[in-house]
């Protein structure tokens, strides 16, 4: 019996970043990473900055960096809508380090309102995830 596969689609405001088949997908969500296999129950969840892994299928094991957004699992299709998605090789380590420093500075200075605070925190999380990712693939 041919293995059922999942269709993984990552869409950001810059367009469709990834469209691929996979046997299993690991998604970084706000409540931690979770795996998706074919025949998964319908689900909508919030994603967080982290590694999106796809295994099996034609491309072998692949990794992408995604950020805050949404994931929908429906009829063996995993759709991820995120603010930004990157291939590990595209990440600029220096830029990520600078962004992390800027975000830390903003948080340290304090006096931020709720929304700005959340924004600075999200920026820091994004930058740290980028740094981690870039180091792994360096």
């Amino acid at each position, binding site marked *: 019996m041919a293995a059922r596969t999942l269709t993984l689609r990552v*869409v*950001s405001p810059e367009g469709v970043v990834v469209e691929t088949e996979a046997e299993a997908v690991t998604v970084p969500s706000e409540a931690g990473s979770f795996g998706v296999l074919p025949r998964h129950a319908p689900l909508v969840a919030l994603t967080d900055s982290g590694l999106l892994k796809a295994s099996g299928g034609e491309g072998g094991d692949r990794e992408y960096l995604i950020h805050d957004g949404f994931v929908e699992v429906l009829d063996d299709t995993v759709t991820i809508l995120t603010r930004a998605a990157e291939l590990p090789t595209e990440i600029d380590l220096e830029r990520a380090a600078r962004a992390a420093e800027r975000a830390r500075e903003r948080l340290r200075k304090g006096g931020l309102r709720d929304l700005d605070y959340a924004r600075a925190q999200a920026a820091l999380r994004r930058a740290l995830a980028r740094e981690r990712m870039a180091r792994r693939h360096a």
Partner: protein
Amino acid sequence: MANIRDLRQSIHSVGNIQKITRAMEMVASTKLRRFQDRALQARPYSDRLEAMVRSLAAEVAANPEGAGEAGRLYLPGATDAPRAVLFVGSDRGLCGAYNSNAAKELDAHLRNVGGDFTLYVIGRKAMAHAARMGYPVAAYFEELVLEKMDFAGAAAVTKVLTDDFLAGKTRSVAICSTRFRSLVRYEPALHAFLPIVPLEGGVAPSSLLLEPTRTAVLGRLIPRYLETRIFHLLLEALASEFASRRFAMKNATEAAGDMKRDLTRSYNRARQAKITSEITEIVSGAEAL
């Protein structure tokens, strides 16, 4: 002959106008490319997000209280409140029929729907139309400079629209803006915005998982969707505006070229006639001697 001098001056000023319209055409082309790229790239994201939100309608309808404030955006607004339309036009003129087409669409819509209505306006030219027609305007987003519009600007507009809707000031919100189909096709259209229209055949509520919690997912997803929608429609409107302006300026440049050619022809004819008459005068003067 004063006529010759007048003609020369006209040729000169038509030439100057042509230079200006050509420059405006080039500026519009560059800006068009910028907004067109952004608008087209953002389309899959906006469309997927819309499908996701609308397919959740059944889930929210099954338990509206548990959905928090965001859940109320799926429900019809106060029935005694006016219907609202967000009317999007341009800040600047000289863009062909862009604004008047959008205005026609708006007028037709208001006539068809009837009843109480109120407007939210973006763009100076759109505001001028609303004022001319004496339409009630709930808010005019004057500080939003369209050309420099970013996501935060779109989010600010969204906040006003949703806050007023939730406060019962409006019954529904539609958006009248121009959609960008291609470089030569851009059509004004009305889009339903609030309340959110359910998608046919959405997911059966009982089988859907929402993580970490229902309120958290809906609370983040729905505002994000509304902001993205407005942002995307504004990008398309901008792309249409520049496409329209480029086209108008291209026509103006060509018309100026034609006019210049005709004027030059008349000028040469007048000049020739003057020379001929001078020669005739000299010759007849010489003969008289």
